[in-house]
Structure formats: structure tokens, C-alpha cells
């Protein structure tokens, strides 16, 4: 018998305290984490809740880090500046230049760096104590980023090749036997206009959402097992406690990895629609 408020993940969570006494303090994470109550301006497009606050904090932190970094930049860099320059250099060399080449890379390095750092800062809030939720874990923000990339690569290609050139290059890839276009063109059409932005969005938001649910599950299971479970089950709490630590570090890695993947896919998509004379 399904219970009325059951969601797929709350039922996943009920597996953990399998034989424990019911009606106690185990609170599995649920989808409601992502829709906290609205605090201000309810009913307007500017409805303000916890996640919006987290996003604003992340944005302010991002701006502060870079403004302070730029203001205090010296010829002989200090520790803070070295870290910042390593990040910027990573975006420039390993993402922009390696994928797009020196000439095109120089043109788009600003956008790619901006995407990398804003996605990273909004992801990392998922593991910062008291914030505890990634700004990108609700679909709106990843969608905006993906639409930005979508408009960017279509705009860049149209500007470089014209509308006809863009359609020809992306819908009729050269070097393929003519009759194969019957199959290839619809697939490419879906790819360019739907799948690329859709996968960018879903990848980022689903990664961050699952990361939050995993972390919250570990934390609440640990607190339940230590404080409320029967004596036989308490040792299991050590496992979930260690799991919480492991997932904490995994989430830091995932936050950086997703920022990298988003930035490098932006570069790859740009490169795909811009490559011309060969």
C-alpha cells in the first residue's frame, strides 16, 4: 500500500532504518527541501526564498573574491592571488585554448571563465555549512545558463557563417554520403536545437539535486541512528557518519567537475558550430 506522501526517494530512505521502531526522529530528505517556504514578495515573479538567498550569497562571494583579487593584485603574488591565477589560467589554457585554439579561444575566454566560476560558486554552496543547498539544484538557474550557451553558440555561428552557413554546417555535416542526410539531418536538428541545451540543464541540476539528497540522507540517518535507534542498530551510525564525510568530499569534487564539464562543453559546442574551412 503506497502511503499518500510517498516520493521515490523517501521510500529509498525508509530502507535504511529497516527494523527500527517507527514514529521516531528519522526525517528522510524530500523534494520539499528544494521548495522552501517563500519569505518575501509572494505571488510576484520576485518571490524570495532560501534558495534565492543562497544564490545571492554565492554571487556576492564570487564578486567579492574577484574584486578583492583584482584590487590587491601585485607583481609578486601572495597565496590568495596564486590560487586565483591558477583558476583563471586553468580556464584559459586547459578549457578555452585547448578546445578552441588560440585565435577563437581569445575571443571566448571571458565567457567561458565567467561560466566556469559562476557555476562553481553556485555549486559549492551545497557543502558549505548553514547554506547546505546548491544554488543550481533547482532547475531555473541551470536552464538560464544553458539558454545562455544556446544563444551564444547559435549567435556566434550565425555571425560567422550567416544563417544559411550555420544551418548547412550544423544540419548537413560535410563528408557524408548524400542519402545518409535523410537519417542524419533530423538527428542533428534535434541535437543542435533541443538536446544540447536540455542535457546541459539536466546534467547540472540533477547532479546537484542528487548530491544534496545523498548528503542530507547521510546526515539525518546518522543523527537518527545515534540518538533514536535501538542499541543493536547504533553501530550502523558509524557507517553513515563515515559515508557523510566521504560524500562531503565527493560533493566538493562534483561541484568542481560539473563546472569544468559545463565550461568545456560550452567550448566544444562553440568549436563544433564555428569550425569552417576544412
Amino acid at each position, binding site marked *: 500500500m503506497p502511503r499518500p506522501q*510517498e516520493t*521515490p526517494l523517501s*521510500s529509498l530512505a525508509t530502507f535504511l532504518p529497516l527494523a527500527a521502531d517507527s514514529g521516531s526522529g528519522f526525517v528522510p530528505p524530500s523534494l520539499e527541501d528544494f521548495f522552501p517556504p517563500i519569505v518575501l514578495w509572494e505571488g510576484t515573479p520576485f518571490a524570495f526564498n532560501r534558495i534565492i538567498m543562497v544564490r545571492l550569497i554565492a554571487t556576492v562571494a564570487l564578486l567579492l573574491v574577484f574584486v578583492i583579487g583584482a584590487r590587491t593584485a601585485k607583481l609578486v603574488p601572495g597565496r590568495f592571488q596564486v590560487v586565483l591565477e591558477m583558476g583563471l589560467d586553468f580556464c584559459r589554457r586547459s578549457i578555452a585554448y*585547448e578546445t578552441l585554439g588560440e585565435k577563437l579561444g581569445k575571443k571566448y575566454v571571458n565567457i567561458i571563465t565567467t561560466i566556469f566560476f559562476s557555476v562553481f560558486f553556485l555549486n559549492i554552496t551545497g557543502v558549505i555549512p548553514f547554506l547546505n543547498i546548491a544554488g543550481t539544484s533547482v532547475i531555473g538557474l541551470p536552464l538560464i545558463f544553458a539558454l545562455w550557451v544556446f544563444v551564444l553558440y547559435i549567435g556566434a555561428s550565425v555571425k560567422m557563417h550567416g544563417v544559411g552557413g550555420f544551418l548547412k554546417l550544423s544540419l548537413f555535416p560535410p563528408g557524408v554520403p548524400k542519402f545518409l542526410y535523410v537519417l542524419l539531418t533530423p538527428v542533428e536538428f534535434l541535437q543542435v536545437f533541443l538536446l544540447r541545451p536540455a*542535457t546541459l540543464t*539536466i546534467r547540472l541540476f540533477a547532479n546537484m539535486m542528487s548530491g544534496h539528497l545523498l548528503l542530507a540522507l547521510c546526515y539525518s540517518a546518522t543523527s537518527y541512528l545515534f540518538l533514536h535507534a535501538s542499541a543493536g542498530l547504533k553501530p550502523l551510525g558509524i557507517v553513515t557518519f563515515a559515508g557523510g564525510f566521504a560524500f562531503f568530499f565527493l560533493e566538493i569534487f562534483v561541484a568542481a567537475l560539473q563546472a569544468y564539464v559545463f565550461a568545456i*562543453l560550452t567550448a566544444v559546442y562553440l568549436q563544433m558550430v564555428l569550425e569552417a574551412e576544412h
Partner: protein
Amino acid sequence: MDISGNLAVIGYGLAAIGPGIGLGILFGKTIESMARQPEMSGQLRSTMFIGLAFIEVFGLLGLVTPFIFG
């Protein structure tokens, strides 16, 4: 023994098999190529991450499907 729960959990477990195999092949082959040609490892690594992103999407689609249709 009485087990209660949601079929979607089993569905997600099944959906994770494919991307799991895919990731295994991807990482295995990349490590193999890196061992053969260490000087190519930078390029191989970035290509690997692009592939990882594409494979991972399938696992994540399995994750979001129950929320959309559930």
C-alpha cells in the same frame, strides 16, 4: 518478511546498469591509452570528461524520470 517501498527504486537501479558499464569502458580505455602514450594524457583527459558528461546524462535521466512521471 514484509518489504514496503516504491518500484521506482528498483527501476533506477536497473537504469544505472547501462551508464555503469559505459563509465567502466570509458575510464578503462582512457587509462589504457594514457599508459600507452603518456604524452597524450592531457588531451585524453579532456576528451574523457566530455564522454563522461554524455554517459552520465543517462544515469541522471533515470534519476529525474520518477519525479516527472511520479
